[in-house]
């Protein structure tokens, strides 16, 4: 069967930032297939040079509006690692709780507002307000819970105000944490109904063998710090991040790309689950199994399901964290910071994968060099090669341009790319 196809998506919609998809097939032969990142760079790594350490978390949070909590925490942790500051368990628990709310907020936004319209045959969430009011109310409820939680711990849902090097400027009221706990408990029902909704969606059957990279911890599902692990068996320490990311530049992309053992690699919810399945909360693991999501899953569309599973994981983990916080007497929120010369590196799992911040300081804490490696920049190469493979698979399928375009768009959306982040 001969087919021709000409797809030119300029500025893909329902993703964060500016990216293009180009697919051209002639007589069943793929002539062109690519993912292009055309976002304008902001040069954060240069902006940080000569700035005092105190500026870094404030500025770096502004790399992204969606994962600003993750950027702020990565920046803070890199500074703390550089200055040799050990945080209290209380600070660690509160930071993880704050991160969980960011994960929940981001995943819910992606699943309901960006992904669901494709499966429900609309161009956006707006018509669903009338046609699927229950789903939209549920999405709003979950998102509100996540945002309220982020407000309570971090002071603000995006570009947090209470998070500082050494701890927090102030602590949440315990009574409000208790209230949040109750809302978390009742959100489990909302998540199980979300799972039922996603069970009605037909996830495209597309496989491309991929190397998955994530953080790894001994006994817990990783979010802040840990070792670096790839599904192909590469293991590195946090400070060896450059050997894991190997950033390089490509034509037609303002974002850098990454590779490890193969041509490309992937990070994100699917990578985390593939590499850390046994450390998911048991209920979340069970949910993954009902969707046939067990390691190693090589279908990038399943990243949507991986995000759903992580929503349940973070909700259950948050309840346990709050219980632990409420059971202990609280200490001072913040410790003193004394700058010193040297370098500091931090790896944090943000919704879209591992985020690295690394700084070099002089003895007064002035930044001499900054490096930020963003999850979507690690994924961009993988997205591109998935598009190439998808075009190959569609070349003789007899599918219409419209069908191929939707599939290609859904494939990119499944990665939930944060394109502005990836060019920072």
């Amino acid at each position, binding site marked *: 069967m001969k087919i021709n196809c000409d797809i030119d998506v300029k500025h893909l*919609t329902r993703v964060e930032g500016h990216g293009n998809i180009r697919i051209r097939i002639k007589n069943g032969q793929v002539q062109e297939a690519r993912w292009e990142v055309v976002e304008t*760079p902001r*040069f954060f790594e240069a902006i940080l*040079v000569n700035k005092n350490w105190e500026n870094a978390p404030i500025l770096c949070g502004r790399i992204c509006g969606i994962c600003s909590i993750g950027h702020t925490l990565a920046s803070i942790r890199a500074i703390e690692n550089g200055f040799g500051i050990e945080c209290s368990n209380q600070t660690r628990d509160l930071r993880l709780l704050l991160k969980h709310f960011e994960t929940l907020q981001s995943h819910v936004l992606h699943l309901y507002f960006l992904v669901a319209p494709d499966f429900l045959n609309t161009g956006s969430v707006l018509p669903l307000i009338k046609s699927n009011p229950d789903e939209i109310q549920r999405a709003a409820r979950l998102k*509100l819970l996540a*945002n309220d939680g982020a407000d309570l711990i971090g002071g603000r849902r995006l570009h947090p*105000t209470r998070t500082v090097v050494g701890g927090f400027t102030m602590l949440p009221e315990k009574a409000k944490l208790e209230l949040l706990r109750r809302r978390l408990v009742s959100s489990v029902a909302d998540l199980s109904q979300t799972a039922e909704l996603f069970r009605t969606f037909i996830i495209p059957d597309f496989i491309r063998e991929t190397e998955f990279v994530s953080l790894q911890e001994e006994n817990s599902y990783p979010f802040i710090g840990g070792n670096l692990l790839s599904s192909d068996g590469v293991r590195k320490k946090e400070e060896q991040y450059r050997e894991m990311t190997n950033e390089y530049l490509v034509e037609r992309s303002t974002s850098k790309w990454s590779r490890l053992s193969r041509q490309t690699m992937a990070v994100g919810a699917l990578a985390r689950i593939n590499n850390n399945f046994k450390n998911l909360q048991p209920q979340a693991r069970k949910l993954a199994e009902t969707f046939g999501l067990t390691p190693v899953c090589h279908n990038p569309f399943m990243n949507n399901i991986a995000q759903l599973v992580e929503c349940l994981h973070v909700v259950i983990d948050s309840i346990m964290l709050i219980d632990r916080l409420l059971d202990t007497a609280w200490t001072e929120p913040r410790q003193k910071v004394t700058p010193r010369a040297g370098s500091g590196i931090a790896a944090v799992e943000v919704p879209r994968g591992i985020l690295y911040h690394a700084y070099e300081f002089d003895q007064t804490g002035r930044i001499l060099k900054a490096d930020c490696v963003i999850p979507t920049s690690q994924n961009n190469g993988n997205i591109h090669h998935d598009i190439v493979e998808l075009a190959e698979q569609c070349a003789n399928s007899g599918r219409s341009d419209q069908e191929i375009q939707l599939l290609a768009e859904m494939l990119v959306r499944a990665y939930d790319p944060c394109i502005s982040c990836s060019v920072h």
Partner: protein
Amino acid sequence: MTTKRSFLGVPIPRPKVAFFEFSSCEGCQLQLLNNEATLLDFLSLLDIVSFREAMTERSDDYEIAFVEGSITRSDDVKRLEKIRENAKVLVAFGSCACFGGVNQLKNRFNDLDWVKAEVYGTHPIETQEVTPLAAHVTVDLEIYGCPVNKEEVERVVTNLVLGKAINHPRYPVCMECKANENICLFDLGEPCLGPITRAGCDAWCTKNRMGCWGCRGPADDANVGQLKKIMIDHNFPKERILDRLECFGGFSKYIADF
């Protein structure tokens, strides 16, 4: 999708609205989807015809354009001019659009080639000095903040739709902070731009005990000289004051005085 609505017998228009973004973190657009309790009511005020981050449909037929982000490339200028041509009202949305935001910090390096080389080596990437929207087109309305405050956005947009006057507070964040009965951050040993930054955020940062970084730009008649004196009286080095003044771009005309 336009439906006839009225309030006390007065017809309420439902304007066609589009959202656009230039160099930014897109956080201000994300804020539009927050405030879940009032989100659906807010959305029903507007007929959204373009919002790339949230919808596939797009149209050039709109009355109000909300534009986020700063201008950093020549193709940005062309796109912005096109938006200006189409829109009756152009709103600069957030600090990047109003002042250049944190992105304008790269302008402090005189050598743009060094900036490019620091991040991309010899790989050619186009960039130019960061500018706010008003450097290229007429801006009808500014909504300040990094990020914008959704309650304020709702108030401003409602007034815009109803044709009511939009007045930003003329007084500084310090007033709102005092009204919130917060401990003064200077007493806690933190620098703060609250005394000179335009209010309207309800002291968002300072009530969380983070000193103000001036993301909303200067209040009317901001007494920057007096702030400098307060900072020096509290033994903050000049560099810390400058870091804050230059952070979001709103105070750029005062930097030379330091």
